[in-house]
């Protein structure tokens, strides 16, 4: 027998109102935690992949689309650009590195990206098994690609046209897996990398066999004849210094290409998302406050009924502070239960969200550690629980024992 046991018994004695208060608290904390987790992990994923890329050069279109497709590999590419033009524009003293990317094919929804070693170095990815691609039709695959598709060193496969996995297979020419990257937690995990020239080779080959059937499709080397300039999808550019921004303006004003600045576009994207996140966060705080009010109301009501009990315990030697503490414990217990369940449910929510994101975008969000901000949420929840319980519980200090006992 102790105060905690009495508090707990009191909560159990009113299961419905305790359940309601606990449920509201849990819901509020779940939403806040989930938002914190999503925000942090999206932020991490976005900034990890954007690091060191100052500009993306591609075909005219939406700059956000260009960035989503070229850096994060989650949107369709804007179109192709002549390699020659891209190289000419990036032959500029302001520009430190320029990494060409060529995409358009996929294998089991994983994108096959033609590029060079600089791309791998940029993400600091390391080859775990085998070697890096060097010749045409050799590929090195990301860790998640290997895990999901079951491709092993030495396996061969045919890429299919398009990025959604429903395209026609390039049946005759097969890629060969020569290496598998270690997990790098970057976009490379979900890519199949091959030399730039593979992509050209595949499509030249393809064209020879299939003739003109694919005219008009978003094809990596659409419209080309054999002497046509070679094309790429985009180029990831790093500036030597911030003055490089001027290059971007020049390209957008004076060429047929588009130069998009990830920092600006991603900020714009987060601003758009931010409105939704702020609204949800406000909603979650409101739910937590309602949870507090619910604790207040149910304690207030039960205290009216339990007034005699309180007087009885006081007459049996309980201190007023002791009883006050016991009532606070009831609010506190609900807060803590809400916090723990909220943490659990927000993680379950994140895993569900992650499963969807993984299926659709091959991104996974699975860092389930407790965030520092969540301790703050705990503080707020505890405060709400204590204040909500303290307001009615203060009545214990004003109680006239004799009068209360004599009333009935």
């Amino acid at each position, binding site marked *: *027998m102790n105060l905690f046991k009495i508090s707990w018994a009191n909560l159990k004695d009113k299961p419905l109102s305790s359940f309601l208060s606990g449920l509201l608290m849990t819901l509020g904390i779940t939403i806040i935690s989930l938002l914190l987790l999503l925000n942090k992990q999206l932020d991490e994923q976005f900034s990890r992949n954007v690091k060191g890329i100052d500009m993306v050069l591609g075909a005219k279109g939406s700059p956000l689309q260009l960035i989503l497709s070229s850096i994060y590999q989650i949107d369709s590419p804007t179109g192709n650009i002549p390699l020659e033009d891209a190289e000419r524009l990036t032959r500029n003293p302001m520009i430190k590195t320029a990494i060409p990317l060529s995409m358009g094919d996929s294998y089991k929804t994983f994108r096959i990206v033609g590029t060079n070693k600089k791309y791998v170095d940029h993400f600091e990815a390391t080859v775990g098994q085998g070697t890096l691609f060097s010749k045409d039709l050799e590929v090195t695959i990301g860790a998640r690609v290997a895990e999901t598709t079951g491709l092993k060193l030495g396996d061969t496969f045919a890429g299919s046209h398009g990025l959604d996995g429903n395209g026609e297979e390039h049946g005759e020419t097969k890629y060969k897996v020569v290496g598998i990257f270690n997990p790098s937690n970057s976009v490379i995990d979900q890519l199949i990398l091959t030399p730039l020239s593979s992509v050209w080779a595949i499509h030249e080959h393809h064209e020879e066999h299939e003739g003109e059937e694919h005219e008009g499709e978003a094809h990596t080397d659409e419209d080309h004849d054999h002497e046509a300039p070679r094309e790429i999808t985009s180029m990831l550019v790093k500036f030597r210094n911030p003055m490089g921004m001027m290059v971007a303006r020049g390209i957008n004003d004076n060429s047929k290409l588009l130069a998009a600045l990830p920092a600006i576009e991603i900020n714009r994207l987060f601003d758009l998302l931010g409105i939704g996140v702020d609204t949800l966060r406000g909603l979650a705080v409101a739910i937590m406050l309602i949870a507090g009010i619910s604790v207040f109301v149910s304690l207030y009501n039960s205290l009216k009924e339990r007034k005699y*009990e309180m007087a009885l315990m006081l007459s*049996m*030697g309980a201190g007023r502070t002791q009883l006050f503490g016991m009532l606070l414990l009831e609010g506190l217990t609900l807060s803590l239960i809400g916090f723990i369940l909220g943490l659990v449910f927000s993680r379950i929510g994140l895993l569900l969200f992650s499963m969807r994101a993984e299926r659709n975008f091959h991104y996974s969000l699975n860092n389930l550690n407790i965030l520092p901000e969540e301790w703050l949420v705990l503080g707020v929840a505890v405060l709400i629980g204590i204040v909500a319980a303290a307001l009615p519980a203060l009545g214990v200090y004003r109680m006239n024992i*004799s009068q209360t006992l*004599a009333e*009935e």
Partner: protein
Amino acid sequence: MLQSHQLTFSYAPTKRFAFPDIRCNDREAVLILGKSGTGKTTLLHLLALLLRPENGSVTIDQTDLTQLPPAQTATFRAAHVGIIYQKPHFVSALSVMDNLLLANYLAKNPQDKNRARELAAHLGFAEHLNKKTHQMSQGEQQRVSIARAVMNKPGVILADEPTSSLDDVNCARVVALLREQSEQIGASLIVVTHDQRLKDEFSNQVIL
């Protein structure tokens, strides 16, 4: 032993009570009889120091309660006085057993489950120990409150109308148990009532 001397109390200047002196030795019982409105409950609360008297003193086992600072009265009361109320009230969320142990806990005594079981067996509610109190009959509940009042083996047992809501059979049983229990622990028993059925049970009587 309990002794009161020239106790007076007033709720308002026009509603003033002056009580006769009461003396009750260990193992003795005193019946205080009075109609409603004569201040029976007030007197009982004064004796338990739930109310502070205007004048006069209450002495339990050589300690003058009116001289104790307020913080110590609760501790003293918990250790030396067992109170039985007119309607049996309990902490409704707790089981019968826990309500008995609560008396030990609040008096800061070790929680004596064996004593609770013995009392329950003796007072005839052993099979109800794990029930909630509101699942029992009035007579059973009143027997539980007797057990609760003697859990700490107090020197004084105060009973406020312990039988008024009981039928004759339960009334006789409760009175017999009250006397038996207080004698067993050597306590002074003071019963305040308007219940005329108790008149013949007590030789020491005070009429208000």
